[in-house]
């Protein structure tokens, strides 16, 4: 008997996948005349497709829909579940993909990135990212995680005539492939012990004490190591700065937001859903990872003069903050704090990358001194970047960034107070380099470079800035549903 399919539940990823194919075919048949005359048909279609995927997602809010079930009579366990947790993450993917598609127009205008293929790869990767949030079995989860990564390797290398882009692609590829293999080893051991690949039955089996405990522990550890590579937790972070600097900046934005978020969702699903009863095993380990990630990321960001590399290290540090609530995962709602931070980080970080992409059209070197006096030369760009940095640092008026840090801090304080203290120290260190950049922005400058602000990238800056401001004024709009989603 074939499985019954709830088409509305799978509509989100399905729309993205179909748009991807449509973009590819249109680009192949209509081809480059559009690209050369400055038309942005693929980018527009991508944004349209992403918006289209948002419609079924909005319709599903507040419901729990399960489909692709394998239980007797089409009941639980199911491979694909859309609930509020899934939808929050879908919102991040939809917003992130839309903004990155807009940013991509800057790279396309430069004429060194093939537009149709770039949009196709972006949409395929986003399809995987949406699927992973809904997957409730390890087979689908692993396959979806690969769908996120594989197009990303190609995107990292998508830049004609730039040897650094190729180098970024090969480093990213090798690290990611190795981490997948390690993670799969862990998954195979957990499967052997529990006898199932579905997350909830797996948790029940472990709780009931199935199989040899040591093998399950080894499987858990290997799985965490593999996923830690994906989210670039220290000491598995070495590929991040190289890849971010070498890849086109829109790809760096994608990697730091959507792809990283996919890694975190994988982590939340595997640890929070599948291995929940093993929390006593993995909590201390993830706590150490979180502390290391924050500290190393922040300390190395201090020295950076190159802006993309600074954003790379700062995104490592931010990943550390997201990991903090995992250390207190046994208390209810802790993982919701991770989710909340992730959502806020996605909005704010994309804002910083969007401005960097625009500035990059005039200053491809992306030195910090290139930003001197941006607020006076280009008030719109300057204030947008200033706001994003303030929010990343967690200072008012970037209230949303501050709230994100408070939420995470609250989750850790109590169950893992030492980690909360480490986090507080790190937030203080973070202030230093964000402030350094802010000073450059507001400094007086003589020259007035010519920025060619592509329409798409300008729109991306505006959208991220507006989202940041709105959420800072009404933080409940974002935080209430997110924090309620994982109760």
């Amino acid at each position, binding site marked *: 008997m074939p499985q019954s399919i709830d088409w509305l539940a799978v509509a989100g990823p399905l729309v993205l996948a179909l748009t991807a194919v449509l973009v590819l075919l249109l680009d192949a048949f209509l081809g480059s005349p559009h690209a050369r005359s400055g038309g942005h048909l693929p980018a527009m279609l991508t944004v349209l497709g992403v918006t289209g995927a948002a419609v079924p997602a909005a319709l599903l809010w507040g419901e729990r829909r399960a489909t692709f079930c394998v239980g007797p009579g089409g009941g639980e366990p199911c491979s694909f579940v859309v609930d509020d947790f899934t939808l929050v993450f879908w919102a991040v993917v939809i917003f992130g993909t839309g903004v990155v598609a807009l940013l991509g127009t800057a790279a396309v205008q430069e004429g060194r990135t093939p537009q149709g293929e770039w949009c196709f790869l972006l949409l395929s990767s986003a399809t995987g990212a949406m699927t992973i949030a809904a997957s409730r079995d390890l087979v689908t989860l*692993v396959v979806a995680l690969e769908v996120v990564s594989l197009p990303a390797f190609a995107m990292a*290398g998508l830049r004609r*005539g730039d*040897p650094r882009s190729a180098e970024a692609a090969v480093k990213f*590829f090798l690290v990611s492939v190795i981490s997948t293999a390690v993670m799969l080893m862990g998954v195979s051991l957990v499967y052997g012990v529990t006898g199932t690949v579905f997350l909830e039955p797996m948790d029940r089996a472990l709780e009931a004490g199935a199989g040899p405990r040591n093998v399950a522990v080894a499987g858990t550890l290997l799985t965490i190591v593999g996923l830690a590579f994906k989210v670039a937790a220290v000491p598995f972070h070495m590929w991040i700065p190289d890849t971010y*600097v070498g890849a086109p900046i829109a790809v760096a934005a994608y990697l730091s937001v959507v792809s990283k978020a996919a890694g975190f969702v994988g982590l939340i699903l595997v640890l929070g859903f599948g291995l929940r009863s093993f929390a006593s095993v993995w909590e201390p380990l993830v706590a150490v990872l979180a502390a290391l990630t924050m500290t190393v990321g922040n300390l190395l960001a201090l020295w950076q003069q190159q802006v993309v590399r600074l954003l790379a290290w700062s995104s490592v540090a931010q990943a550390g903050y997201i990991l903090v609530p995992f250390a207190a995962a046994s208390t209810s709602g802790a993982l919701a704090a991770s989710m909340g931070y992730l959502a806020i980080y996605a909005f704010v970080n994309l804002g910083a990358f969007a401005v960097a992409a625009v500035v990059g059209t005039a200053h*491809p070197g992306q030195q910090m001194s290139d930003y001197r006096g941006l607020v006076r030369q280009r008030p719109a760009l300057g204030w947008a970047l200033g706001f994003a940095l303030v929010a990343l640092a967690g200072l008012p008026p970037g209230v949303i960034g501050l709230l994100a840090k408070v939420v995470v801090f609250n989750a850790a304080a109590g169950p893992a107070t030492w980690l909360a203290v480490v986090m507080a120290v790190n937030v203080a260190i973070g202030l230093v380099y964000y402030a350094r950049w802010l000073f450059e922005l507001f400094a007086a400058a003589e020259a007035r470079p010519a920025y060619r602000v592509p329409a798409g990238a300008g729109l991306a800056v505006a959208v991220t800035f507006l989202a940041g401001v709105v959420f800072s004024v009404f933080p409940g709009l974002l935080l209430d549903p997110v924090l309620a989603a994982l109760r």
Partner: protein
Amino acid sequence: MPLWWPLLLASLLFAIGVYGVLVRRNAVLVLMGVELMLNAVNINLVAFDAHLRDVLHGGQTFALFIIVIAAAEVGLALAIVLLVFRSHGHIDVDRLRGLADRDPPTEPSGGDGVTAHSALTGPGRTR
């Protein structure tokens, strides 16, 4: 046969794969190490599937899908490796240091690679 036979084989094969990944410098040979690791995973999955009498055949299906994933990865790897070879003239992972994160903080240009990059991407080349 005892269940630990295939599991031991998988563990050893996995360790050999790890050794290959760490010791090799040619990107393609690193990839061969990864293939050994993935095969170790598949042996585990197939052995557990047979042992558990999994009615869903989760293990075997997973192994099949991993084989497909590996094939897709290798296909893309070929393209990436050729891209690197065309731009660098070699595929030695250790010698790919154009991006290495070791810029001295005092250097005004921000370090290696950046200057060359600006020359490549500057407005003069984009038209």
